[in-house]
C-alpha cells in the first residue's frame, strides 16, 4: 500500500525522534487550566504563613540588602509557592535550624531578581546575578574567594557570548538547568571561541557529535522525564491526499499508530518492538510479523537513536553541505542490521535530514523547543522515485497517561472501538446493528 510505505518513510524517520512533547500552540488542556488558575487561587498563606515568609525574607535581606521590603516579601511568597510545588517535603523543614539555605540560595536570588523591574534596579540585578553564579560555584565546591573571582569572570564571558542569555540571567528568567549549561559553556569558552573552521570540526569524533547532539537537543535531562507521548499530525501524500495521524508511544518500545480520514479511523498498527498487529474497520486485529511490517517497526523506537540508545552504533562519514550549510553525516546502525545516515547541522547540532538506505530522504525543519527538547514540527520526505510527502505536527502531548493495554490487541474491545467511533461521528446508519463492546 502506497500510503503505508510513505508513512513508514516519514514516520519511522520522524516520529521516533524522541521528542519531548509539547503542544504546538493548541489551547492547553484541563490540567493547564488548573495550573493557570492555581496561581491566583492559591494565596501564599496556603503554603506559607507568617513565620515562613519572615524566615525567607530574612534570608533575602541578608543576601540582597538593597532590595525593597515589599519585593522581598513577594519573592519570599513566590519562593514558598515554588517550594511547595517542587519540594513539599522541604516546606516542613523550612523553619528548622539545619535547613540547607546554601542549596536554595541560587533559586532565592533568581526569584528576587525577577521581582526587580525597571532600569533603576539594573545595578542590583547585576549584583544578584553575580552572587547567584557565585552561589552555584560555591555549591560545586569552590572556595568563597575563588568562587567570587571566577563568578566575575564568568559573568563577563556570558555577556560577551550572548546578550540575550546575559539579560535572562540578570532578570531572573534563567532556570537552574539553563544556568548550569551556560556556565559550562562559558567555562569551556565554546561561544567565546571563534567559529570552528572546517579543519577543526574534523577533529570531532563520532562520539563527540552524538554526545553534543544529545546535550544540545534537550535541556538538562528532560528526556528522562518523558515516559510516553502522543503526536497528532497531518500528512499530505504525494497524490495530494490528506490524513490525520495519531501516534502513541510509550517506553520502552510500545507504539500505536492510527490513520484517520474524515474523522474516522481507517487503519491501526501497533506493537511492542517484538510483536505487531494491525486492524481495519470490521476486521479483528491481525498479528503481523516483523518482516512484513517493514520499517514501521521502527516506530517502536521511543526516542531518536542519536540519543545514545543501547544497541545502536554510529560511524562518521564524509561531511556534507546543503545551501551553504555544512552538516555532519553519521551512519546510524541498529542492532537488527538496518541503517540510515543522519545529517546533523554543524552549528546547531539539530538533525536536519536523513538519508534512508532505500534511496529515500527526509528533511526536517520548523524546530521548536518544547518542554526542554528540540523537535522538528515539519518533515518532507522524498522516496527513491522522487515522490514527496509532507508531515506537519499539530500537537505533541507529553506523558498523556498511556497504559500498556492500549498497545495490545483485544479483538472484542477493538471491534467495539470502531463501533463506538462511528457512533460518535454520528455517521452510523447501522448504529442499531453495531456491535458494542461487551462487559
Amino acid at each position, binding site marked *: 500500500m502506497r500510503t503505508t510505505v510513505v508513512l513508514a518513510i516519514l514516520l519511522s524517520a520522524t516520529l521516533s525522534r524522541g521528542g519531548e512533547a509539547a503542544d504546538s500552540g493548541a489551547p492547553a488542556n484541563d490540567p493547564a*487550566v488548573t495550573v493557570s488558575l492555581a496561581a491566583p487561587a492559591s494565596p501564599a498563606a496556603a503554603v506559607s504563613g507568617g513565620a515562613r515568609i519572615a524566615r525567607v525574607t530574612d534570608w533575602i535581606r541578608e543576601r540582597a540588602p538593597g532590595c525593597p521590603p515589599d519585593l522581598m516579601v513577594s519573592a519570599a511568597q513566590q519562593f514558598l509557592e515554588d517550594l511547595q510545588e517542587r519540594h513539599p517535603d522541604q516546606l516542613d523543614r523550612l523553619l528548622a535550624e539545619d535547613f540547607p539555605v546554601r542549596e536554595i540560595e541560587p533559586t532565592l536570588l533568581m526569584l528576587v531578581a525577577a521581582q526587580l523591574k525597571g532600569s533603576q534596579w539594573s545595578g542590583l540585578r547585576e549584583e544578584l546575578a553575580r552572587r547567584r553564579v557565585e552561589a552555584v560555584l560555591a555549591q560545586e565546591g569552590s572556595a568563597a574567594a575563588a568562587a567570587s573571582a571566577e563568578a566575575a569572570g564568568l559573568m563577563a564571558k556570558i555577556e560577551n557570548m550572548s546578550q540575550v542569555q546575559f539579560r535572562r540571567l540578570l532578570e531572573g528568567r534563567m532556570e537552574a538547568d539553563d544556568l548550569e549549561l551556560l556556565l559550562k559553556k562559558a567555562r569551556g569558552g565554546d561561544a567565546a571561541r571563534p567559529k570552528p573552521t572546517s579543519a577543526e570540526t574534523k577533529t570531532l569524533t563520532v562520539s563527540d557529535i552524538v554526545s553534543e547532539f544529545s546535550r544540545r537537543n534537550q535541556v538538562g535531562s528532560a528526556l528522562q522525564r518523558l*515516559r510516553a507521548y502522543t503526536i497528532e499530525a497531518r500528512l499530505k501524500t504525494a497524490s495530494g491526499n490528506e490524513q490525520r495521524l495519531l501516534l502513541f508511544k510509550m517506553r520502552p518500545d510500545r507504539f500505536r499508530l492510527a490513520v484517520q480520514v474524515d474523522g474516522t479511523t481507517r487503519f491501526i498498527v501497533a506493537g511492542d518492538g517484538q510483536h505487531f498487529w494491525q486492524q481495519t474497520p470490521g476486521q479483528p486485529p491481525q498479528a503481523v510479523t516483523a518482516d512484513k511490517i517493514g520499517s514501521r517497526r521502527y516506530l517502536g523506537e521511543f526516542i531518536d537513536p542519536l540519543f545514545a540508545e543501547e544497541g545502536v552504533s554510529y560511524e562518521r562519514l564524509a561531511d556534507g553541505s546543503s545551501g551553504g550549510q555544512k552538516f555532519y553525516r553519521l551512519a546510524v546502525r541498529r542492532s537488527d542490521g538496518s541503517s540510515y545516515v543522519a545529517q546533523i547541522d554543524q552549528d546547531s547540532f539539530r538533525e536536519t535530514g536523513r538519508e534512508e538506505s532505500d534511496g529515500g530522504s527526509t528533511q526536517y525543519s520548523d524546530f521548536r523547543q518544547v518542554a526542554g527538547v528540540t523537535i522538528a514540527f515539519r518533515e518532507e520526505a522524498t522516496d527513491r522515485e522522487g515522490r514527496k510527502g509532507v508531515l506537519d505536527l499539530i500537537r505533541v502531548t507529553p506523558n498523556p*497517561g498511556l497504559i500498556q*493495554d*492500549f498497545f495490545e490487541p*483485544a479483538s472484542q*474491545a477493538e471491534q467495539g472501538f470502531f463501533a463506538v467511533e462511528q457512533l460518535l461521528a454520528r455517521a*452510523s446508519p447501522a448504529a442499531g446493528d453495531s456491535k*458494542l463492546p461487551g*462487559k
Partner: protein
Amino acid sequence: MNWPQSMTTPARSSRRFDTRRILKAAGVGLVLLYGMFVSTGYIWLRYALKNDRVSLSDVAFFRLREVRRGMAAEQFAAGKSAWDAGKYQAAYLAFISGVRNDPDNVAGRLMTADFLGVASAGNLEISLLEDGLRRAPDDRQLIERTFALLTTTGRDRRALDLLHRQYASRLTGPNGPLLRTSEVLATLNEDGAAAAKGLLEKYPDLKDRSESAPVVARVLWETRDRLAAIDLLAAYVQSHPSGYAAYAQLADWQVAAGMADDAVQVAQRACAQFPQDVAPRGLLIQMLAASQTFESSACQRAIESYLKDLGGRPEALTMLASLAGRQGWVTLARTLYAVAGSRQPNLAVLALAYSDALVRVSQLSDAQRVLTEVEAQTDDANAAFLRLLRQRQVEVAAARGDRDGAREYARRLASAFRSDPEGMETLRRRFLREGIAEAAAELTSASAAAKVAASN
C-alpha cells in the same frame, strides 16, 4: 499710634479689597479643582476602566458606593464572559475584583462561587460563601448554597460549627427549617444515623416540610426504615421534579431494595426531565444493567443512544468511562479509553476509570500496573489529579494485602492534601470505613501536621 485718616482709610480699604480678591480667587480655584477632579474621575472611570454604569453625578456627589457597585457589575459581567470563553485566569481576576468592590452583591458572589466550584477551587468557594453569610446572614440563597456545599464535600463539622456559632439564635427564625434541615444532614454525616434521628425528633416539623424530605428520607434509610425512605423520596421527586440528585438517590435505593424495574422508570423520568444532561442518561444505563444485564439489548441500546446523542460533548466519554469503572465494565472502559485517545490529548482520567473497572472485577495486579504506569506520567505539581491517583493506589494496595504499600501511598497522598486538611480528614474517614487502618493512621499524623502548618 494715631495715623492721619487720609493715610489709613485707603490702606484699610485696599486690605479688604485684597482679602475679597483672595477669597474669590481661592473659591474659583477650588471650583476649578473640583471640576477637574470630577471630570478626570469620570473620564477615568467611564473610559479608562470602561465602567458604562457610572454617571457624572455619581462622581460629582462622591457616591463612591454607587461607583463601586457599577464597577462590580461590570466586573461580574466581564468575569462571566471570560468564563464562557474558557479564560479562567481573566475570569478569576474579574470575579474576585467584583466581589471586592461590591461585597454585598449576593448574585455576583454566588456566580463567583459557581465559577470557583467549576474551577475546583473548593476552599476559596467556601471562604467566599462564608464571608457572604457574615454580611447577609439571612439570605436564603447563600444559606442554602453554603450548607449544601459544606455537607456534600465532607465538611460537616464545619457546617455544624457555623450553625451553632452563627445561627444558634436563628434556628427558629424565618430560615429556621432550612437551617435545622442542614443541621440534621450534617449530624447524619458527621455523627451517624442515631444522632440524626434524635435530632430529627427534636424538630418534628421537618417531617412535614416537603423541602426537608430528602434529608429526612436519608435518615430513614440509614436507620433501616428503607421502604419509608423510598416512599418519602418518591413523593418528593413527584412534587419537586427539577432536582436531579433526588432521582439518582431514589433509583440507587430502589436497586438496593430489589426494585430495579422501578429504578429504571425513575431514570427514564429523569431523562425526560433533563433531556440535555449527561448524568440522567448514565443513570438509565446503570439502572437498565441492574434491572436486566449489561449485555441486554435495552442496556446496549441505551449506550448507543448515549454516544450518538451526547458523544460530541467533551465530558460524555469521561462520564461514561467513569460509570463503566464503577460498575466493573472492563471492556467498555478500555474501549472508551482507546476512543478518547483520538479525541483528547490527556487520557489519565480515563486510565483511572479503567483501573476502577479492573478493581471491581478483582484484577488487582492489572489495576496496580495501570496506576503505576499513570503515576510515571504524572506531574507532581498536579495535586488534584494526584489525589485521585494516590487514593486508588492506597485502596488497590490494601485490597492486595500490601499493608506497607498502602501506608506508603497514603503518605504520598497526604503530601497531595497538604494544603487541604479538611479534605484529608474526609479521606481518612473513608479509609477507616473501608478498613484500611494503616492508611488512616498515616493520614491522621499528616493531618495534624497540616493543620499546624495552616495555622502558622
